[in-house]
């Protein structure tokens, strides 16, 4: 027992030694799922942020030090990760990546006066009643109504089927606003089926969509179940237009997934990796070189988050010595006045923390995301 305690103590000492850091750099913490079912989002965010930090540091002005902590998409672990960063002397947070952990960490950060800029936690609950939490991504209600609007505007189909995860807040949230908007726009929802987290057989859901004669299937879900739905639809020779939202992003980087199955799938996301502007081309090139796959929207969101923070830090005049509480108020003031043009469009922020930018649709062609016309 004693030996074990000594070992634990030694471990703690080693850890504190590891956390000793560079002089004069502003400390930014990143929280997200680096392991577990949502790991793709977390690692994308960490990678995107790392690229942005390197670029910002190379410019020679503000120096940023990044510390990435895993939360396994669990609020409890996320609070642990946050506390860990707090011990490190973190001044602001990029995160958390997923919604529920973000609500938990947001409440704690609000109490501590720690500024948070989440790249991808899209629920309105994330920013509700908190002045210190800002978003880079759209809120869920926005995504649902924007999807319905896009489908209707581009007359992609009038008979729409929906498959969504009714055990997931993100999916349910988008579905609810989609349904309301669809009704308003005269889209006919011919089939609505649900599944839960553990579902692996989607034949019931796909069959009911097929039998209802759906021309378009709306999938406000994450990419893992979406990939299975595509596979099983193919097996049933059911080929409508599949339309997803930003959770679908990442489907092409699933290991062992036949990307030809995703051919023609459309998704609404603020970022497409084939963009011709210089910024996107540079980012995609760097990302592909470093990490070996095409960046998803999450990586782009994180990249923008770092640039946004860098701009806000500059505007507010924050240095490495500014305590987190003071930095929080200075950043809140600075965020209101910012207008950032990043990979995911031109963004401005309201005092609630909600972002304003315009969504674009991308379609998957030859195993890559291509901007839809």
């Amino acid at each position, binding site marked *: 027992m004693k030996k074990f305690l000594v070992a*634990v103590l030694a*471990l*703690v000492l*080693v*850890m504190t030694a*590891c956390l000793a850091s560079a002089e004069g750099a502003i400390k930014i913490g990143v929280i997200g799922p*680096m*392991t577990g079912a949502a790991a793709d989002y977390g690692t994308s965010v960490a990678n995107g942020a790392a690229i942005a930090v390197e670029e910002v540091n190379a410019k020679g002005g503000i120096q940023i030090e990044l510390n*990435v*902590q*895993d939360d396994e998409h*669990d*609020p*409890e*672990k996320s*609070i*642990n*990760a*946050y*506390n*860990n960063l*707090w*011990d490190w002397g973190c001044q602001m947070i990029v995160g958390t990546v997923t*919604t*529920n952990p973000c*609500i*938990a960490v*947001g*409440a*704690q950060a609000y*109490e501590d006066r720690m500024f948070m800029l989440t790249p991808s936690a899209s*629920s309105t*609950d994330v920013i*509700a*009643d908190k002045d210190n939490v800002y978003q880079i991504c759209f809120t869920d209600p926005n995504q649902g109504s924007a999807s319905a609007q896009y489908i209707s505007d581009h007359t992609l189909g009038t008979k729409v089927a929906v498959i969504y*995860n*009714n*055990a*997931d*807040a993100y*999916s*349910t*949230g988008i579905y*609810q606003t989609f349904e309301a908007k669809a009704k308003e726009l005269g889209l006919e929802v011919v089939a609505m089926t649900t599944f*839960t*987290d553990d579902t692996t057989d989607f034949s019931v859901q796909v069959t009911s969509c097929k039998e209802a004669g759906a021309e378009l299937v709306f999938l406000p879900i994450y990419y893992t179940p979406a990939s299975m739905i595509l596979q099983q639809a193919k097996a049933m020779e059911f080929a409508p237009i599949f339309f997803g939202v930003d959770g679908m992003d990442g489907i092409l980087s699933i290991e062992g997934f036949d990307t030809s199955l995703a051919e023609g799938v459309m998704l609404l996301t603020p970022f497409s990796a084939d963009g011709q502007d210089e910024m996107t081309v540079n980012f995609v090139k760097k990302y592909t070189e470093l990490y070996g796959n095409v960046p998803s929207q999450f990586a782009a969101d994180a990249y923008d988050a770092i640039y946004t923070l860098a701009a806000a830090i500059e505007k507010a005049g924050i240095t490495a010595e500014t305590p987190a509480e003071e930095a929080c108020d200075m950043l809140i003031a600075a965020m209101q006045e910012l207008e950032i043009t990043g990979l995911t469009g031109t963004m401005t922020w309201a005092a609630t923390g909600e972002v304003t930018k315009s969504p674009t649709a991308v379609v998957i062609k030859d195993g890559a995301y291509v901007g839809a016309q």
Partner: protein
Amino acid sequence: MKKANKKLSANLITYGIVIVAFILCQIAIAGIIPGFKMTRSLKGQLIPICVYVVMAVSLNLTVGISGELSLGHAGFMSVGAFSGVIMGMWLNKGMGVENELLCLLAAIVVGGICAGIAGVIIGIPVLRLRGDYLAIVTLAFGEIIRNVLNCLYFSLDGSKLHVSFNNPSIPGKLLVNGPAGATGVNKMATFEVGFVLVLFTLFVVLNLINSRSGRAIMAIRDSRIAAESVGINVTKYKMMAFVTSAFLAGMAGALYGLNFSTVTAAKFKFDTSILVLVFVVLGGIGNIRGSIIAAALLTVLPEMLRAFSDYRMLIYAIVLILVMLATNNPTLKNAIGRIIPHKAKKESDKA
């Protein structure tokens, strides 16, 4: 007489460990002694540690003392968490009870009672069965309750509480929003209450074990036929252990729910049940003190391993395997026996 004294002193040691740990934590939080200050990261885990200790001790009552494998302990925790959160928030926001401690205590009691009722409902049909049926049904219960909670919507409209199933459009502010779970929960839980809850759990479980009923429960575990033949009511005593276990798990759940500003049904998956079972098995089945230590250490361990980043879950698994091997190693047991003689005697008693 001597045996009774031995048991009493063993129990006192268990209480002592908990109390000393609490006092040490308080000293570390206050930072009175220079260089002995608790990190924020460890401080944040104190309440979850209390929760998992209560969970492990209560599960040990079912698995170790009553000898029934339960795989749905997280289900009872979720019942407690949600009923506790609803009770706490209703008192605080709906009825205007300002004192958060009072709300928390009421929430914990209500959480325990609701989980206890769930325990009765599951227990009545199942505990009459023999063999592994309890494991299968508790597993199913854990899954069912999670899916039901995903479809439940509670809202608070003034002091009125509305409930609906699969339909979020109810008047007032949503307290529990289906799969999004409860959001915007006040963080009422405190470490002190967690500590008291651990002591309460120990008090209940240790007294039950050392009572007439406890001996009946263990007799049933050791030989059901023999116990029946001397007139012990098997179902009654099994129920007693099972419902007490569920009740305590519900209390832990309520404390857990009120510690984070959000709680979702997805947290109380099969994984969480297994995690608690791992605490029990690692600490020693039937060994209450072992459960406490295992639950506390295994909750802190993954955080301690953060420096290893991506490899930490791998190392966590290796540590588990090593501990299991080490505690069952005869050479090591002999070595310990040489240092602490009475342990060796105990081992030879068993053999």
